[in-house]
């Protein structure tokens, strides 16, 4: 590992871009090549299900870096080509080949291949008018179709499904969310927060049907007409499938790297061969929170994780192996409701609702008396205070958390000055 290594980053998304940029920021001297299969310059995904769909943000506004940035930093940006094959030499080095026949030699390989949306596995599930959302191209199609759509069915009550549902309803469509589980956001937020958000969506005209079993997408001339469930048919001229994304592990597997619901990486972002790095949505790693048990594996799909994980990988490349610890955070804007999550909740954690103003919702999770995670809707300042407190590992006992007289912002300030002094 050295500053002169030629680094190849596969995947020009949030994590891959961050690796390339941070390498240069840190004074890396070797070649840095970033290969992405999408034909457009690297962009942010979060607005694809929000501002980009409503039209408040154009494609230009999504760019992660300016056009001249890459040349100025001497980063080789290859777009519209997928890495399809990697041949290994010794000590982690090798050659990669793209589907356009280009070869790139490297000393260090970084996989930042992201994830791909799961498809609806029923008859008609691949018809025109049945869309998934991951890329700018997907979002362009969805936006065009949404303009004309009257009946939108969203399959899956997860983050992306609910964000699109809120946007579609705001654009005037009749929206039905079909969720297989007993409630929305089943895996990702607590019961209390799910209820709060369900009420929000209901108030905005989005209908949510839980325990939905989809049998077929009824089509007419290739276009969706209805979604058939075991409880009957729901009219649809547009179906958005938001049932999660599968990590893209193909390349890793072809290299013989261990994959288990993602490319398995250690606390230095190293894959099982000990030299290939992998970052972001395509990886699984041990719970990185200070309260992690070292056994529970997680796959995190968020901008924050992509960015922080990239920083860890870059430190590893530069030989400054600091293990990856983090208190991950996430946001999801669902219409006017801003959901923010910090930390990783686990079954058994004790949920405590913090009394807060109308429209606001703040719930904390304690494990053995220690605050380990929080979910906040409609209160970004309270969220920041909680993020600071968790980041500083400041103890916030249940009584303190639940006491509306305690100003979290004040506590956060104290926690911050305490950590500064401790340094």
């Amino acid at each position, binding site marked *: 590992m050295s500053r002169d290594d030629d680094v190849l980053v596969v995947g020009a998304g949030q994590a891959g871009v961050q690796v390339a*940029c941070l390498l240069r*920021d840190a004074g890396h001297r070797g070649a840095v090549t970033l290969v992405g299969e999408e034909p457009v310059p690297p962009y*942010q995904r*979060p*607005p694809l299900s*929000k*501002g980009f769909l409503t039209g408040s943000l154009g494609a230009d*506004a999504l*760019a*992660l*870096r*300016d056009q001249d*940035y890459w040349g100025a*930093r001497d980063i080789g940006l290859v777009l519209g080509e997928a890495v399809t094959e990697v041949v290994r030499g010794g000590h982690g080095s090798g050659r990669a080949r793209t589907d356009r026949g280009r070869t790139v030699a490297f000393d260090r390989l970084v996989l930042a291949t992201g994830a791909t949306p799961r498809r609806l596995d029923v008859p008609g599930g691949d018809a025109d008018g049945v869309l998934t959302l991951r890329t700018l191209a997907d979002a362009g199609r969805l936006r065009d179709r949404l303009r004309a759509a009257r009946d939108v069915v969203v399959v899956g009550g997860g983050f992306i499904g609910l964000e699109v549902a809120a946007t579609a309803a705001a654009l005037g469509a009749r929206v039905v969310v079909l969720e297989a589980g007993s409630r929305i956001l089943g895996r990702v937020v607590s019961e209390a927060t799910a209820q709060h958000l369900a009420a929000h969506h209901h108030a905005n005209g989005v209908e949510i049907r839980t325990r939905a079993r989809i049998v077929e997408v009824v089509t007419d001339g290739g276009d969706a007409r209805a979604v058939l469930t075991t409880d009957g048919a729901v009219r649809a001229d547009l179906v958005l499938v938001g049932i999660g994304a599968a990590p893209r592990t193909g390349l890793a597997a072809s290299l013989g790297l261990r994959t288990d619901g993602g490319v398995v990486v250690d606390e230095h972002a190293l894959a099982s061969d000990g030299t290939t790095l992998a970052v972001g949505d395509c990886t699984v790693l041990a719970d990185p929170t200070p309260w992690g048990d070292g056994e529970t594996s997680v796959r995190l799909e968020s*901008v*924050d994780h992509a*960015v922080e994980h990239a920083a860890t990988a870059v430190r590893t490349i530069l030989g400054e192996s600091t293990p990856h610890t983090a208190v991950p955070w996430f*946001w999801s*804007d669902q219409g006017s409701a*801003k959901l*923010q999550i910090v930390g990783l909740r686990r079954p058994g954690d004790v949920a405590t609702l913090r009394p807060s103003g109308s429209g606001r919702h703040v719930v904390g999770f304690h494990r053995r008396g220690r605050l380990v995670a929080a979910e906040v809707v409609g209160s*970004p*300042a309270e*969220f*920041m*205070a909680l*993020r*600071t407190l968790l980041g500083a590992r400041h103890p916030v006992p249940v009584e303190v958390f639940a006491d509306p007289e305690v100003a979290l*912002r004040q506590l*956060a*300030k104290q926690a*911050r000055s305490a950590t500064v002094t401790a340094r």
Partner: protein
Amino acid sequence: MPKVFYTQPDGTVVAVAASPGDSVMATAVRNGVSGVVGQCGGSLSCATCHVYVDEAHRDELGTPGEDEDEMLDCTASDREDSSRLSCQLIIGEGDVHVTVPPEQL
């Protein structure tokens, strides 16, 4: 073309050509100006885009909205009268001068 001048905590100044209508945050991030992170892309979720705005154009850049105002109380570097979240600062026809704080959340 207007320019944004970013003064770093160590006093060095980075000048970046900007487009009217873009934010001070996006302009910094897209050009790799260090110290402005902008993790949430300007959706008022992260407060990693805190800057101090030069006295001269505080008026033209408006005042913080309610969420921004509350969030500014929680920034990693202390809030001052001139503190703003730069994703909310929209560049007009004129130059803008800001100072980057030593720390972001």
